[in-house]
């Protein structure tokens, strides 16, 4: 399982990379592996306002659909349209396949460091 050091993480298994007032959000490697082969991604519209822990997108596997929640609130300023045609990119490299960009972050939820996220994932794996 891959966890990159320079990113923040959420307990819903998203990664966040901040750049001043804006941020990029994607799914973690753990999430893509748990979801299995992703066959489609429903992304929000540019301009949508999302609150902390709000569902802003979902990913489909063959027989399941999973909501994606964001640990930050803000306005969606870009979506990764490449994923609409090639959702498998999330499975190939989850940290390269960003989902949305937010400009003007309005609020932040609970964010974990790489180390904390690693411990969190290990605790879930033990439970299972």
């Amino acid at each position, binding site marked *: 399982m891959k966890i990159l050091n320079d990113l923040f993480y959420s307990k819903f298994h998203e990664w966040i990379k901040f750049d001043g007032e804006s941020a990029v959000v994607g799914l973690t490697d753990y999430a893509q592996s748990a979801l299995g*082969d992703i*066959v*489609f991604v429903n992304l929000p519209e540019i301009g949508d306002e999302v609150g902390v822990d709000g569902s802003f997108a979902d990913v*489909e596997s*063959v*027989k399941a659909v999973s909501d994606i929640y964001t640990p930050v609130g803000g306005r969606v300023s870009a979506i990764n349209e490449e994923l609409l045609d090639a*959702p*498998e990119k999330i499975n190939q490299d989850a940290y390269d396949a960003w989902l949305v960009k937010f400009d003007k972050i309005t609020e932040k939820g609970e964010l974990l460091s790489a180390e904390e996220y690693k411990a969190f994932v290990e605790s879930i794996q033990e439970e299972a």
Partner: protein
Amino acid sequence: MLVFEKSREGRGTSFLPICDVPEVLPSPQFQRKLPLQLPEIAETDLNRHYSELGEKAYGVNHGAYPLGSCTMKYNPKINEEMAGLSGFSEIHPLQTEETVQGCLEVMNLLEKYLCEITGMTHFTMQPGAGAHGELTGLLMMKAYHQKHGDTKRTKIIVPDSAHGTNPASATMAGFETITVPSNKDGGVDVEKLKEAVGSDTAGLMLTNPNTLGLFDKNILEITEIIHNCGGINYYDGANLNAIMGIARPGDMGFDVIHVNLHKTFSTPHGGGGPGSGPVGCKKFLSEFLPSVRSEEKDGRFRLVKAASSIGEMKSFYGNFLIVVRALTYLMTMGKEGVLQASENAVLNANYMLQKLKDLYTPAYNKTCMHEFVLSLEKLKKETGVSALDIAKGMIDKGIHPPTMYFPLIVHEALMFEPTETESKETMDDMIEILRDLYEEAHTTPEQFHSAPISTPVARLNEVEAARNPILKYDWPNEKGDI
């Protein structure tokens, strides 16, 4: 091979006489320029084409079909023959009432019988299937609340074991779904239900026996909780086959209900439809029924529309020929027959459960109704063989698998519904096959991953099908020739 790949220019059968009036064509601006590509095929080859497709399908005629929640009982042949009578199949839906008295009597009789079996006052035959019935019932509930100025009732309560159609129908009817969890016995968690209800509750949707094959003992308390807060109880009739002649939804406190003629009342599924989902209700909801009903007065039948009807749910009066089949079935069965059907459905399910539960873990270890759910979680942990693998293994042994991975609250679920029309030998065969598969899962687990091997195709790549959908055949060139 697809029918299009069998097409050859110039072939085909001519079915029509030459046009005996002057030929008229649309003016050019209304004519199609896109070439039409339909196949050109000799009748011999077309007939063989469909025979081949028939050989690559599995129906109730082949053998047991223990799909839980689907009630795949035998489809009596007399039903088909009656539906094929020209006095039913050649009747235009917009003929005058005087010329369709037989059709109206069919609708009237089936309504009476369904009312008696379910404890309802009236039924509409219009809904096209179970899910369509759900939407119909929910819209009636909405109209009722609105008529009483109760516009704040926007929530429908659904247990977590419910069919996916329940919450989906609630959304279509403009309601918000509130999910209540099941208790440890598989029934509705009554305490949680009490917390969930309030002045915003429009109603409850419930299947009883539920999708775990269990009858909810607290049913009267549950329906009363909803009534006391001003809500309406909707009964999903998917599992009615367990209780005909034994208990009635109307007596359990349900106010509106759909039944599936293509499950309980023996009409064939046709590879996915047509079904028919008549909706019944208590008197206080009758004024909201959609479409028209057939009423009798002095031996004449006429079509009557309800006073505050929600309108039309589809064209005409429902899937009438399915109604004919169901009526034929009920005439054959009679009061003693429907009771016998339910008793034997429940007996058969319990017999299979009893003979399997030492190896496979029942989701709930108690007497079941017409179906039961096994959890293969333990088997999967021990051997790596999943519910899906066992299902595919069953195919190689010549039987149709049960429902897989439903209800969602049971892990590695396999849901069996043998129905009353399977004999003890057939069930004994199924039991033996399942016991063999359990053994094989422990001795040769690897063989399961390539199952099935006896079918025209092996396991199919569903990921690729969803990522890059190919939803139609593309002709090699514009003219459609090969």
